[in-house]
């Protein structure tokens, strides 16, 4: 009888210990998953602005100049990549979010929604490799074209035209 009691007590302790360990591990796992870093692509380049979105147009549709929207040079779903063969960024889907930060000091930042694709005809739009007398004179390619609202929200003044940024995407 005493042996059986001992056995029950020991097994009970083991079960309690296992439950405690699992609970501890589970809680720590949750906290860690919340704090775990995301896998984010990023590129340092230039941002500029445009004002052609009227609320219903754009390669993805519903692009609005009054919203924090943007044009991205590579959107496979809209065949934009055919116009930007040298784009250094990967394809995004319509509606993707991109966070754009002024470089440096790493802020301010705005999160914009991709609703359009840039034009890249070799000399303008998101290609942006300006040339003078046939020689490339500005190494900073434009990666993202912001609506006027996005650009003002990020930088304040449209008259600056083109600004160095870090773009975070694929998250």
């Amino acid at each position, binding site marked *: 009888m005493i*042996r059986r009691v001992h056995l029950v007590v*020991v*097994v009970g302790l*083991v079960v309690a*210990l*296992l439950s405690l*360990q*699992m609970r*501890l*591990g*589970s809680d*720590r*796992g*949750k*906290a*860690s998953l919340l704090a775990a*870093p*995301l896998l*984010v*692509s*990023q590129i340092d380049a230039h941002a*500029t602005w*445009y*004002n*052609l979105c009227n609320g219903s147009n754009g390669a993805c549709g519903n692009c609005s*100049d*009054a919203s*924090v929207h943007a044009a991205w040079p590579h959107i496979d779903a809209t065949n934009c990549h055919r116009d930007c063969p040298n784009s*250094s960024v990967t394809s995004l889907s319509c509606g993707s979010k991109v966070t754009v*930060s002024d470089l440096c*000091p*790493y802020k*301010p*930042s*705005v*999160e914009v929604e991709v609703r359009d694709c840039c*034009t890249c*005809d*070799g*000399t*303008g*739009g998101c290609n*942006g490799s*300006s040339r*003078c*007398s*046939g020689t490339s004179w*500005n190494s900073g390619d434009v990666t993202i074209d912001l609506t006027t*609202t996005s650009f*003002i*929200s*990020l930088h*304040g*003044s*449209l*008259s*600056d*035209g083109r600004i160095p940024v*870090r773009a*975070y995407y694929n998250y």
Partner: protein
Amino acid sequence: MKRKTFVYVLVSILILGGIAGGLSVTQTYAGLPLLMPTPTVDAICSGDDSVDSQELVPPPHSPLVPLENIIGGTVVEVEETRIVISTAARGQVTLQIVPETRIWKGKWDSQLPIEVGDFLYGYGVPNEESTVFEMEQLEVNIVNLRGPVSSVTQTAAGVDIVLEESYTGVPTLVHIESDTLVTTDSGENAFEETPIEVEVGDGFQIIGLQLRDGSVLATRIF
């Protein structure tokens, strides 16, 4: 005796298995990520520019200008300290001009008048209904053109070019004058200090003031 030994061995195996299992769960879900370094601002800003992908959390949304403060539209009425504009999203909106309002029309504080038909972008503090804004900044008739040059004409003031705008394909006459700022990798200087040779086929980005005849006075070129 044998039975007692068997029970103790079984209990020991259960206890060790429980501890090992618990450690395994803890390490799998919590242990490794906690050991990863957290990126710092300094590390990000001083890093290699060519970095394409890292494990980072994007910075939080922290705009310089709040979205609700931004306004743009076409001028339909002008008074001394008050402008009414027509907007796509909010209908007619009144902009109050105060002494502190910064105005760009070709350049900052150019003193060029704002006229009916002008289009503008800016930001200020809206009232509760967002029908009246006390403006902090306005940029009037500003355009941004990108594309290849299709013709070049030397003028007394500088050079006139026709730019085939990349998005629209519309050719636009652009006047580059002596005080137009030219941005290159080595810096930014006035056109008269950095005369550049413009040829058909060159690509430019032009920030400028749209004039009444539809041509553009370039203020900054890239």
